[in-house]
């Protein structure tokens, strides 16, 4: 395969920036787009002003308000974000059709061959950023490199409004110097585990062979092995269909208290629900993933007769599944909630079935 040119574009604080753009009163203010704290809402996006106080995505709104007392909470307008996302996409389409959206505010572009025969991927990234600024009054950060993994990390390096290029001959050094917690797919818990094993950077991971990595990190071990050697052949897939939407969290300490578990399920379900609603998706099947303290994994799923996306139903179903899995003397280190059997909401296939009760 010839050397590819991949750009990862990430809109800066997307929902919050759209809100600040459309409502001048919010400009320069600490705002968070998401659900209300009294309804156990979570932060979908926080503006940079709010991030200074430590407000982050997926945080409980209640906690966000504690951290940042003057926080302005804005109810999301997903229809608007979807429309803006479509406008951003139309800018991408001036350069390539190989666009893989990851969500409304993030996408990979393969510009190895592009419609305007521009040789430099950096130039394309610059043009896209200018177009986004001039036409949409929003900022985006771009990462440019030879594969998806490096491009994505690069885009996050100089946020907001950044452009980071990792040259082909610098990729190896870049990954070797990369702290493990910045690896895509490494969360806090995996990072702690790696640190405990004295694995702090890509270079440390590179010292381990594939078998050792797989033994330590399961199927991700294989991915880590290739990635630290700069190998990432995953193509930019324009038509990747979303098959499921999920979220999960590993707890700092294992949980066994039913009320705590319920709270976590509600929090995770809220994230899943907002991701579904962003894309106007609904799904029928709810899956609960439980990892016990002894690493035993259990997944349980339940299919509703009709498609749903609301937080209450997702949480209630997941909680039901949790209760059915048995809660006597268990310690749980991870919970995940997923929705699959996805249908897009735009169609006519809603709840046409009438009910007796």
């Amino acid at each position, binding site marked *: 395969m010839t050397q590819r040119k991949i750009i990862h574009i990430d809109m800066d604080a997307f929902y919050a920036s759209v809100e600040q753009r459309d409502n001048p009163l919010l400009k320069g203010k600490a705002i968070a787009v998401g659900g209300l704290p009294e309804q156990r809402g979570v932060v979908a996006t926080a503006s940079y002003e709010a991030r200074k106080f430590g407000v982050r995505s997926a945080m409980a709104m209640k906690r966000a308000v504690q951290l940042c007392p003057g926080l302005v909470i804005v109810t999301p307008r997903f229809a608007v974000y979807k429309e803006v996302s479509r406008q951003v996409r139309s800018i991408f389409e001036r350069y390539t059709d190989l666009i893989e959206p990851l969500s409304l505010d993030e996408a990979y572009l393969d510009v190895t061959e592009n419609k305007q025969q521009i040789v430099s991927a950096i130039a394309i990234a610059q043009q896209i950023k200018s177009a986004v600024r001039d036409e949409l009054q929003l900022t985006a950060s771009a990462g440019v490199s030879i594969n998806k993994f490096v491009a994505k990390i690069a885009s996050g390096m100089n946020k907001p409004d950044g452009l980071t290029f990792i040259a082909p001959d610098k990729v190896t050094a870049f990954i070797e110097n990369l702290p493990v917690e910045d690896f895509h797919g490494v969360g806090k818990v995996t990072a702690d585990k790696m640190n405990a094993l004295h694995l702090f950077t890509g270079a440390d991971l590179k010292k381990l062979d594939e078998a050792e990595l797989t033994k330590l990190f399961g199927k991700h071990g294989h991915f880590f092995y290739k990635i630290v050697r700069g190998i990432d052949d995953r193509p930019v897939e324009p038509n990747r269909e979303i098959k499921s939407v999920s979220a999960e969290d590993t707890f700092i300490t294992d949980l066994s208290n039913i009320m705590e578990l319920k709270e976590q399920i509600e929090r995770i379900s809220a994230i899943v629900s907002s991701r579904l609603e962003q894309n106007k998706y609904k799904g029928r099947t709810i899956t609960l993933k439980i990892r016990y303290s002894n690493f035993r994994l*259990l997944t349980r799923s339940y299919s509703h007769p009709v498609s749903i996306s609301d937080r209450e139903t997702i949480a209630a179903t997941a909680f039901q599944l949790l209760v059915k899995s048995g809660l006597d003397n268990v310690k749980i280190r991870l919970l995940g909630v997923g929705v699959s059997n996805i249908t897009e909401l735009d169609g*006519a296939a809603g709840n046409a*079935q009438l009910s*007796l009760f």
Partner: protein
Amino acid sequence: MKFIVSSSSLLKHLQQISGVINSNTVLPILEDFLFEIEDKKLTIVATDLETVMRVQMEVESKANGKVCIPAKILIDSLKNIPDQPLTFSIDKNFAIEITSDNGKYKVMGENPDNFPKEPVADDTNSFTISSSSLLTAINKTLFAVSNDDLRPAMTGVYFELHKDFIQFVATDAHRLVRYKKTNVKCPKEDNFIAPKKPLNLLKNALPDSDDELTVNYNASHLFVTHGSTQLICRLIDARFPDYKVVIPTDNPYKLLVQKSDFQSALRRVSVFSNKSTNQVALSISGSELQLAAQDVDFSFEGNERMSCQYDGEDLQIAFNAKFLIEMLNAANSDEVKIELSTSTKAGIIKPTEQAEEEELLMLVMPLMLNS
């Protein structure tokens, strides 16, 4: 403890009750069978905490004793052993050694004292019903039971006991089946909801014969005994919806169709329906019934027409074809009568001929026609 048993007979007994065991349970002991020998009688028990099933068989043994044996590995091994006597030897650490003509197999058992205790049959009431009658009642209702755990009352079959008849009712809120059986006597008016899983297990365990079954129940459990096989299950602790009020009493339009013709037409046309709704629209006018399905996303379209007897005003109404097909299956007559009113109200399906001691009534709610 030591006993000798025929491999094929043991397998047959285990398979009668192995359906109780869930494949992925949190308590490892629930993946075991409890073996208990008393006076050369082996009792085997399986449970998932909600349902308990037990069978008994004769074995050769000198002493009494108990042990828990992992179910999957035992069944897998028995399936591959040709019919012969097997010797089971269990030591005090519950290690099990099975000796056959071909060799020796070892598996670790578990302490039988940790096996969940069976619920006790206190304060029970009882009635008797023939095995085939209970089987028919299950077959005619179970398909309509809801899978919606958020509405637990509908996840089982409602047994409504009267002095000289029993009504079995199942619904998933979109359709409802009521099967009435008259030649049974119950000591008192009563009711309970039996969950889906044990009823499914009974379906496989009960013979289609006139054998009399004793059905015991109390406030929390149901106990069904047939010969040496017994099933105990926890009843659903919820209030069944007031189904009587949703049964229309005055649907004015009557449609009479050949059951098998209608069912085949629905099967053919529904292939072209939207897969999330299975919607088939019926247009009834004079003596003609038209069926139409479409899936706009894929440009699929299916249309058929068939003759019928219809007494009523021209009507367009849509149903989930899967529901209709399943309900027609439950009707044992050549013709069915469908009583309708408007396109948004429940339709009633009845067989035109029924045995004297039974009465089947089915309700189905339409789909909204998006015009």
